[in-house]
């Protein structure tokens, strides 16, 4: 019963059913998500062969610890997003179910061409979802950039097929040492750019602002945490275990990732709208995660990825509620909005502080692991950049939180009467869900030994040998 194929097949079946039974679409979506989330906790690591042909000729689904973390995390996050914004689902249930199937396929597949197909399924669903804001020129921009990315990815895997004679990930990885850097340069860079469109790396992330900043309470967290998280997991799988490349290529990709990180954080500092701050911050964090994957610090990258997508889920949901209730998300005209909505504000604040890396939250644990990993690898340039950017990050988060909590302009004495007019941001149910997710952020940061056990299950992720920080280390022991 716990066959990972069901994670892909059941949502697709329900998507076809919801074409026939349109009225039940919303409920079918909920059933599909509940089924997937429940099943994700029961699948075990191993390989599933599809179609009766043994790999490398046939297609297989590979579940390792890394994929397992991804599947559980992404399905749960999507369930939370849909439950919080269930009233906005409406006609989009078919698209969301298709996206769910595509996302699970992307995470599970062990074949490069299969990955292309699942990526296209997800991305086409994402195009349709991004049209929800009725800003069609942004959708077309996204569509054009996304399609070019897909074509480049396809070209990359074709060249790789030409070189290795295989499209199976494990087989390609085994044959890769026989090839020279010169031969690998073009295919690896093409795949890097192709995946980079979804990951939001800098030169190809032009679509992000238009799509994210107009998205509503349902679509924004879906893009920022579910789809972006999936893309990052796929990136990690590809560039750590399938295409571990040589120094020249690593340097090239590392420079692009770090530039994305620096650009994202500085751009976020400059913004006035809450959603814009969050979207540039997620571009920056995506750059950092890719830089970590390329440097081989898999555990640190996964923890950062988890902390980032959970924070972004809460923050984009609340930012969506701002536009919904106040018709603006400019933080200067939302002074003291959290005075009226204290519990929503607490959830938002915990998520924001975790992003800034305040101790006792999971974001701090992520940053700690990153720094320890880099120092043990005797790399001192990247930690310097990360710490410098942490100041920028802290600055815009404090600025944002101050504006949203304190009524009155700068220089004024804060009084409750200066705050914006009172409106309930999220319903009681949604506030409770946001608070529970915020509790996960705290729990992940305080109980770090449990966090490590849950994420790694005692095995190194993708053969990663980098250290992870535990309580025993803090007491001076190894």
């Amino acid at each position, binding site marked *: 019963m716990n066959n990972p194929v069901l994670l892909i097949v059941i949502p697709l079946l329900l998507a076809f059913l919801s074409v026939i039974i349109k009225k039940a679409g919303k409920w079918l979506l909920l059933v599909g998500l509940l089924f997937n989330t429940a099943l994700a906790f029961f699948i075990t690591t191993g390989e599933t062969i599809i179609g009766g042909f043994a790999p490398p000729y046939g297609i297989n689904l590979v579940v390792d610890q890394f994929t397992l973390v991804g599947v559980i995390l992404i399905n749960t996050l999507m369930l939370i997003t849909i439950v919080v914004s269930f009233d906005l689902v409406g006609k989009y249930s078919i698209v969301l179910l298709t996206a769910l199937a595509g996302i699970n396929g992307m995470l599970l597949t062990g074949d490069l*061409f299969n990955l292309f197909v699942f990526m296209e399924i997800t991305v*086409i669903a994402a195009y349709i979802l991004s049209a929800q804001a009725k800003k*069609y*020129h942004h959708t077309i921009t996204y569509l054009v950039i996304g399609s070019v990315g897909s*074509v480049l990815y*396809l070209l990359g895997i074709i060249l790789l097929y030409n070189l290795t004679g295989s499209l199976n990930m494990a087989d390609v990885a085994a044959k890769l040492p026989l090839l020279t850097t010169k031969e690998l340069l073009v295919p690896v860079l093409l795949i890097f750019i192709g995946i980079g469109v979804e990951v939001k790396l800098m030169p190809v992330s032009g679509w992000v602002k238009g799509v994210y900043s107009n998205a509503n309470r349902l679509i924004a967290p879906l893009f920022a945490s579910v789809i972006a998280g999936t893309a990052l997991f796929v990136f990690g799988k590809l560039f750590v275990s399938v295409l571990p490349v040589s120094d020249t290529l690593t340097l090239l990709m590392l420079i692009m990732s770090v530039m994305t990180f620096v650009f994202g954080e500085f751009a976020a500092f400059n913004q006035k709208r809450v959603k814009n701050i969050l979207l540039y911050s997620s571009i920056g964090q995506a750059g950092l995660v890719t830089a970590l994957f390329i440097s081989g610090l898999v555990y640190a990258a996964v923890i950062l990825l988890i902390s980032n997508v959970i924070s972004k889920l809460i923050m984009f949901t609340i930012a969506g509620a701002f536009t919904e209730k106040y018709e603006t998300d400019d933080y200067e005209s939302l002074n003291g909005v959290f005075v009226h909505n204290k519990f929503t504000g607490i959830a938002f604040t915990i998520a924001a502080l975790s992003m800034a890396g305040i101790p006792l939250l999971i974001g701090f644990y992520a940053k700690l692991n990153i720094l320890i990993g880099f120092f043990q690898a005797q790399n001192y340039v990247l930690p310097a950049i990360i710490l410098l950017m942490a100041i920028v990050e802290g600055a815009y988060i404090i600025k944002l939180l101050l504006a949203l909590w304190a009524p009155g302009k700068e220089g004024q004495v804060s009084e409750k009467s200066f705050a914006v007019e009172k409106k309930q941001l999220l319903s009681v149910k949604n506030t409770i869900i946001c608070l529970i997710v915020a509790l996960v952020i705290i729990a992940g940061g305080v109980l770090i030994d449990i966090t490590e056990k849950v994420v790694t299950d005692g095995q190194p992720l993708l053969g990663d040998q980098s250290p992870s920080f535990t309580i025993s280390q803090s007491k001076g022991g190894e």
Partner: protein
Amino acid sequence: MKEGKKINLLTAQNTAIVLFFIGFYGLCARRNIIKTIISLGIMGGGVILYFISINHQPNSMPPIMGEVGIVYADPLPQALVITAIVVGISVTAVALVMFISMYHTYGTTNWQKVKKMLNERKNK
């Protein structure tokens, strides 16, 4: 090189590369949104042609096992290309739907005019 043997430039691979860059040029240089979508199609077509041509050998037979001593064609690209074509068509369809919706809003097919209209709306 012996006389009488010329280098054949008109191979499927070269055609594919030229097609790909025609598409890329169209994407960069054309302001018409329909032409942008067509360019995407041309780029995809170039990649697909490249895929089926990379392992092509003249006089190869369909890969039905049985006879010995014959060069068999590589079946994988042909099987995968069908999927890639279908994916390409779906993307084009979605792109055209989005274009029609946009055309109803702005009444133009030109990227620059759309941007201009947006700026005017913002200034108002």
